[in-house]
């Protein structure tokens, strides 16, 4: 077993174990921590695949932003992290059946699918090629993704903004009438 295989199998073991813990951990905070482990494992796989830019982006975006965002959500929504709260619904059997069936179908279709391998080694400046491709061949999706991120930013702000309508005390339409209702003698107190 060469070093590449050793690295792949250990990373695969880490990723699969962490993923299983993410979906089965009773404490939701533990799930978030295991998610970070799984994301780091995927970054390691990207290094193994010589996609260094994506490995850096994976650590920066997933581990640095999304996982921390998840932790914020866990902390802001209290009571769900308590032990003793049931963490699965009644569909455990069905979910297991569906996911294992899907896995069987995927592995079966993988078994004899004719991949067209290219024996060429990875080019020297793969990051350079990636950047050049993003700004030539994929320039339209690149711009669309930037607009999408802007829309998501504004949308998140608008959705999560605390709205005062509805739950706040309704504004009195006639303050004088309300004062009169609360204190009927107020008329006599008014100085002449």
């Amino acid at each position: 077993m060469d070093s590449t295989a050793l690295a792949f199998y250990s990373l695969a073991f880490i990723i699969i174990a962490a993923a299983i813990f993410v979906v089965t951990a009773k404490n939701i905070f533990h799930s978030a921590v295991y998610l970070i482990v799984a994301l780091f494992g995927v970054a390691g796989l990207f290094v193994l695949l010589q996609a260094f830019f994506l490995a850096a982006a994976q650590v920066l975006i997933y581990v640095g932003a999304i996982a921390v965002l998840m932790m914020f959500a866990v902390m802001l929504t209290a009571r769900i992290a308590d032990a003793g709260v049931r963490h699965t619904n009644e569909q455990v059997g069905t979910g297991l059946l569906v996911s294992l069936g899907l896995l069987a179908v995927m592995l079966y279709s993988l078994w004899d699918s004719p991949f067209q391998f290219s024996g060429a080694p990875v080019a020297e400046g793969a990051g350079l090629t990636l950047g050049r491709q993003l700004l030539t061949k994929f320039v339209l999706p690149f711009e669309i993704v930037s607009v999408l991120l802007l829309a998501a930013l504004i949308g998140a702000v608008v959705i999560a903004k605390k709205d005062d309508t509805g739950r706040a005390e309704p504004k009195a339409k006639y303050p004088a009438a309300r004062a009169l209702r609360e204190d009927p003698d107020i008329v006599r107190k008014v100085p002449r």
Partner: protein
Amino acid sequence: MIGLSHYMALSAIVFCIGVYGMLTRRNAVAVLMSVELMFNSVNIALVACARFVTPETVTGQAVAVFTIAVAAAEATVALAIVLLIYQHHRGIDVDRVNFMKW
């Protein structure tokens, strides 16, 4: 020798773990974590294809960049919705958040 099928098999396994979590967790944040797992499995498949099928033009890596961006946008908006639901209902049990159903 580790080839494309190894990475594809790993990707399929992680994807199916994500599907299981998405179907069975009650907590909306845990459902989102399962969705992130599925996004990551797809990224593994894309980058593996970029490595083994088109090593000269790293097309799969370019697509993976877009996947990461879309995943970030999805996580942002979904967590905002989760916080809003928590403010209104004092809970984010996805089995009980069905007020748009009828």
